[in-house]
């Protein structure tokens, strides 16, 4: 092992770490606001990448129809609730607007996708298709049990993960996709080959972390989200609506996951089930951050990425074991040092 290899491995680890960092901050975000350990975060990465690939190759992605289906399901539920006297007509107007939005997006995809889209158009359209999926999942799976225990929410999140993997297999098939790079540029710095794509991944990841940090620290909306996280009932008393906080959080999580998918799909091949391992490694990083701190979760992601890269070199057969074993000393250390809160 010479310095060249040390440097190349470090660079590879850094790019992977940026991907895990995006997954980790989304997991921290969702947990901080809703107390859901969001196992399917990685699925947004896979769905995003494959939706993007579909648009580029000229197919209307199945996720667009899924999004439309989700909007219709929510509208049906709202109408049913209004009939039972649960919600106001305002909610129905909103869910109808959701259907119109979904129809508009599907129309744009159906009108412009055949023959292949340019990347400039495909990126916003992918986000437009994917972001509503986040709040839809929240509304259908989690909102009815917003006050449930962390364990209960974890079990539901795991179920959502399995559903999403199954739907992904149906929607995208078993084989993977690889996209052309957004910018086809590369240079060599000494022994290290640096591609524009790998710089994109790192910059986007850093930008997302800083943006979230600022959002939660400085803006009123961000503080409102934190208030919901700390005490749902108390926040409600001062006029913050928990439901809206949850929906906004899931929209952000879906947006982060999709961005991540768009960024890494030219770097590697993405399959319908690639997301799980990315999500799991993001989860290890989030645990290192105590499921609370964005900068610490990012640091954890860096540790996971670098460790994975070097252990692939030294013992490729055991690298997953090495990465996931990392969680044991971290948990041990945290439980020895940390202050314990009982579940309310």
């Amino acid at each position, binding site marked *: 092992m010479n310095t060249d290899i040390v440097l190349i491995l470090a660079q*590879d680890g850094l*790019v992977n770490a940026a991907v895990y960092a995006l997954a980790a901050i989304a997991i921290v975000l969702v947990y901080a606001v809703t107390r859901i350990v969001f196992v399917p975060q990685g699925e947004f990465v896979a769905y995003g990448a494959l939706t993007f690939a579909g648009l580029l190759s000229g197919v209307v992605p199945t996720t667009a129809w899924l999004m439309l289906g989700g909007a219709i399901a929510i509208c049906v539920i709202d109408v049913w609730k209004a009939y039972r006297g649960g919600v106001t007509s305002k909610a129905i107007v909103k869910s109808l607007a959701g259907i119109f939005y979904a129809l508009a997006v599907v129309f744009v995809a159906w009108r412009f996708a055949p023959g292949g889209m340019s990347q400039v158009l495909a990126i916003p359209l992918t986000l437009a298709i994917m972001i509503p999926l986040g709040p839809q999942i929240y509304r259908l799976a989690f909102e009815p049990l917003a006050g449930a225990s962390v364990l209960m929410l974890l079990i539901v999140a795991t179920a959502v993960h399995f559903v999403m993997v199954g739907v992904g297999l149906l929607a995208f098939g*078993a084989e*993977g*996709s690889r996209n052309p790079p957004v910018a086809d540029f590369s240079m060599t710095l000494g022994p290290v080959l640096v591609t524009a794509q790998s710089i994109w991944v790192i910059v986007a990841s850093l930008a997302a972390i800083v943006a979230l940090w600022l959002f939660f620290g400085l803006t009123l909306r961000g503080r409102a989200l934190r208030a919901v996280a700390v005490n749902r009932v108390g926040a409600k008393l001062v006029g913050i609506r928990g439901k809206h906080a949850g929906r906004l959080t899931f929209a952000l999580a879906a947006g982060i996951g999709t961005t991540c998918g768009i960024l890494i799909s030219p770097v590697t091949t993405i*399959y319908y*089930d690639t997301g799980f391992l990315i999500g799991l490694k993001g989860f290890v990083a989030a645990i290192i951050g105590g499921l609370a701190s964005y900068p610490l979760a990012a640091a954890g992601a860096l540790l996971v990425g670098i460790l994975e890269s070097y252990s692939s070199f030294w013992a490729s057969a055991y690298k997953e074991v090495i990465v996931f074993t990392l969680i044991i000393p971290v948990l041990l250390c945290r439980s020895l040092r940390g202050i314990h809160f009982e579940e309310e």
Partner: protein
Amino acid sequence: MWKICLAVVLAALASPAFGQVKLGATLSTTGPAASLGIPERNTLQLLPKSIGGLSIEWIVLDDASDTTAARKNAEKLTSEDRVDAIVGSSTTPNSLAMIEVASGAQTPMISLGASARIVDPMDAQRRWVFKTPYHDSMIAETVARHMTATGVKTLAYIGFNDAYGEGWGTELQKAAERNGVSMSAWEKYNRTDTSVTAQVLKVMTSSPDAVLIGASGTPAVLPQVTLRERGYKGKIYQTSGVINNDFLRVGAKNVEGTLLPSGPVIVVEQLPDDHPAKASGLEYKKLYEGTYGPNSLSTFGANAYDAWLLLKSALPKAAAKAKPGTPEFRQALREEIERTANLPATHGVFNMSAQDHLGFAADSPAMITIRNGTWAFVKAGGS
């Protein structure tokens, strides 16, 4: 009503004059091995319903890639349906589980699994078992010989961290040793890995003349792209597990020039006219793609077709000795399949013997490459 009466009368008239042969198949048309089982089932659906005065009835069951289900299917086929022969199953573990049933019921079985263990060592039970896919050792040997012939001295291996990768690595190591090629590295990765840079660096520090990637489908693209990105200039080999159109789509120009072993049927139109597998291969291609569309052909379906070719040649001879549906007929059928000689099939020429229940010559697998985004014939065998 008159149609039914006519059918009954015709059947009554027909049965003594012709024979009714029942053939059973258990294939993995669902589950993880479905990509093997589906083309196999598709092939069986295209076969003629009679041969040499014998009418043929197929009973095709799905074993969901599950060992227990395969064994149960075999039991059902032999004890309830009393079939004259069994085709299947699609994978090695399933086929191994069926051997005991087939030999117990004294019914010939033609497996579509790849491992040599299905017919080796030849014992009292395996007397009843035949197979049509090449032994995996034979394919590894083909690759190793191609390496020796083209001046490769050292070889590195990057394979799946699972049974597929382990199996290929083991066979390759043995074949490489036999042919004087030394293996310099054995690296592992997972199907869903997003980066194999570290493994590729490890491989490149051992500076091999060639790298073989032991993976199947589109996940086999990643190591190859990474090797190219890191500036690896040597030869890159893949296994026959990558032969599908998705591999070409995802690999695009990164997989040009890749070498891999295959049944010649994939490049049948490019084979020289004197190639022994050309005629049967073309016939099969016309039959299969005529129904399922251009470029739908796979070597798995061709394995099932070869099993049919064995039966097609043996059935009339066996029917001359005994009546279909009897133990004597199954005994005769087994002997006739074992006696198959110089029978051209899509994967080579069958020459069975009491010791060899595959019957293909060692040089039957072909080396193919990827040129202009499609499969191209290099040469037959590795010698």
